[in-house]
């Protein structure tokens, strides 16, 4: 197992390098110039050029790329063009809110979606099944920002139960931390819950038709045991896969959710950086997200071997 994990980590390095080159090239050829944004409307072309030079943006592509890679290899993600802060500091400031949001959403999804999918499969064809699947379609169809606005209106403005916006670090208390994340997590989780519930239902239906389930029933095993001990464990591989793939959805959704609920996370940082053409920040974030994807894929593969001992590498 250890050698497998090591091999996988080594294999990801070329992927990361290609992603890095791709992102750097894309930004290089994209229209827009941070020097123009910085210089402001009053600036002369000479002023803009001086700013470009001071930022090193006038240097050839290969030199800029080489310099960036060299810094990365030395653990330096560079400095933001706009804030003059280290990119690692900026990402560090924003990592907490995004991670918190993703963890809460992930927990919410697992706690809500998996049981819903199991129940829907168990009661396949019934009113309960249809209600759960209708909810799934509803959740899948509504954009995150629409759900976000609805939740904010009902639970923040009308009922005054929860705040509309912001983020409080966990170090300042559990409730202040949690209350800011409940509505965003529900908004972000809707699509995700719908997806996982549907996959859970479909996979469970397939498993419930297997011979060993019939045998378990014939031996007098209770419904709970059949569903959660035999069936769910065997249906786990595709569910884990979807949850893993869903991390991508979460990252994408976090961009919108963080804007709607004014959470100072990586999603908002990404958008701000793109709009300002803050290249070092964009590159740092993309590199981080690529790393997360690679890590999640690796974790999924490891979890496969745990939930299904037949899978061996």
């Amino acid at each position, binding site marked *: 197992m250890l050698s497998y994990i090591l091999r996988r980590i080594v294999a990801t390095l070329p992927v990361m390098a290609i992603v890095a080159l791709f992102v750097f090239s894309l930004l290089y050829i994209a*229209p*827009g110039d941070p020097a123009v944004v910085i210089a402001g409307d009053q600036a002369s072309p000479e002023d803009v050029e001086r700013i470009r030079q001071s930022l090193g943006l006038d240097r050839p592509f290969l030199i800029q790329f080489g310099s960036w890679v060299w810094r990365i290899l030395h653990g330096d993600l560079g400095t933001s063009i706009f804030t003059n802060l280290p990119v690692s500091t900026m990402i560090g400031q924003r990592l907490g809110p995004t991670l918190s949001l993703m963890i809460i959403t992930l927990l919410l999804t697992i706690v809500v979606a998996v049981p819903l999918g199991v129940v829907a499969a168990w009661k396949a064809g019934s009113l309960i099944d249809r209600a759960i699947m209708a909810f799934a379609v509803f959740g899948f169809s509504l954009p995150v920002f629409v759900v976000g606005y609805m939740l*904010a209106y009902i639970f923040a403005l009308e009922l005054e*139960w929860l705040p509309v916006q912001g983020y409080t670090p966990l170090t300042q208390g559990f409730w202040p931390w949690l*209350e800011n994340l409940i509505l965003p997590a529900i908004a972000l989780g809707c699509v995700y819950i719908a997806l996982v519930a549907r996959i859970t239902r479909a996979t469970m239906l397939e498993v419930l038709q297997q011979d060993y389930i019939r045998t378990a029933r014939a031996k007098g095993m209770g419904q709970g045991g059949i569903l959660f001990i035999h069936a769910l464990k065997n249906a786990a591989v595709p569910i884990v896969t979807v949850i893993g793939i869903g991390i991508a959805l979460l990252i994408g959704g976090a961009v919108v959710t963080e804007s709607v609920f004014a959470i*100072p996370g990586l999603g908002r940082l990404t958008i701000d950086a793109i709009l300002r053409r803050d290249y070092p920040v964009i590159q740092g974030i993309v590199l981080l997200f690529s790393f997360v994807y690679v890590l999640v894929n690796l974790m999924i593969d490891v979890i496969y071997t745990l939930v299904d001992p037949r899978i061996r590498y």
Partner: protein
Amino acid sequence: MDRRTVLKGLAGAGGLALSGGLSAPAIAQGASARTLRFVPQANLANFDPIWGTQYVVRNAAALVWDTLYGIDAKLQPQRQMVESEETSDDGKTWTFKLRPGLKFHDGEPVLSKDVVASLSRWAARDPMGLMIIAIQQELTAVDDRTFKWVLKQPFPKMLYALAKNNAPCSFIMPERIAKTDPFKQITEYVGSGPMKFAKSEWVPGAKSVFEKFADYVPRQEKASWLAGGKQILVDRVEWLVMPDPATAAAALQNGEVDWWENPIADLVPVLKKNKNISVDIGDPLGNIGSFRMNHLFAPFNDVRARRAVLMALSQEDYMRAIVGDDDALWKSLPGFFTPDTPLYSDMGGEILKGKRDFDAAKKLLAESGYSGQPVTCLVAQDQPITKAQGDVTADLLKKLGMNVDFVATDWGTVGSRRAAKTPPGQGGWNMFHSWHAGADCITPAAYTAIRANGDKAWFGWPNSPNTEKEITSWFDAKNLDEEKAAIGRVNKAAIEDVVYAPTGFFLTYTAWRKNVSGITKGPLPFFWGVTKSA
């Protein structure tokens, strides 16, 4: 016990176990009242007011850095850090004396050498500063509190240059910081203004915090815009960036923030209905909508084509697209200068008044030689004001029979592409949309967009010798009457040559909770004199 308390209690009980005993600190009611939570117009992405000239940077900088002079509500420069000034008989030597007791946030006194370094850095980046540098003989510290600026020829607008509120303002920094290359960012934010910047709490894009500077010595006069006694009546001001207007509106209604700088027109009716919220015009100097035509290339290199567009455009269409149905928020503007200011003039503005004449405009366009070539119209879709104007312009040009190449993109791209002097078909452009703060359009001093000196002019590179001649006569004017006359002639010449197309004058609202008082109207949010009750 309400439901939120129950929820908090339940979560607190569960959270106590999960967080290993961490619980929410008890925040005293008074502490909340001493912190003013403000939603600014944009993100404070950098904090060097000389290097970065965005309005939001200027607004934040006005809390941290003081200026030698400040512009007041009557648009007059008033002494601020300066105790007195003298001008030599020939008008070439300005000698200034600083107020005693001025301190930087690091405890060091403000000295003349700090001022000299700060003014040198500012002047290298500011249009008026560059004009002064061009005629500068020397700028030197005479003693710790006295410095002099010796010029080769008189510069009557000196105090205005030092007081003006448009970016970059001549903020005073410690010498060691002010010696930073003006094209590189400073990394220390030490000023002598009424508030200190809490750098450790700065999360660019999300939050900026300012704390009251205990050693600040306000002037004795009543505060008036950037002038007078800047009394800070709260302990902290927190700027909370909210990119989504609906969220900002909800947060204001919910009491999570106290003051929202510029609510969008669509949400103002909702805010006005809330009994806990006050809504009023934020900046009486408003904004001037604009689109610029590229004077270098056909069809707009011919003044007849530019005039044809002016002849046909309806400012009402533009303004309604920006502000909606609220008639209190806009007015027609037959010229380029901010209405209701001392120098305002509509001289020569007939082409923008009265019924729109499409037939005459089409005829004039044909005379200009326009024969259906594409007109590249850049529109930043991520800025509601430019997006609204772009849609109206596209419709206008089509009605005039023009072939519109509508380039819908983002502001970052427009910002870069508008600088290209290549032909429109090769990466250049024919038109782009923008707007100018009314505070910048009171005189030609800070009004880059009105300049018409060809290659050196703002994007579009208009070349109108008459406009330039009259701008010079304004700079040389000795009194208000001469200034007024000069501005009238500038307006007439700029309209004749269509330096750019003004699309109207519009105002925006500001909104705050009713437990906040002392908010004044002005071109930037002023925090002095603002209090908040629990």
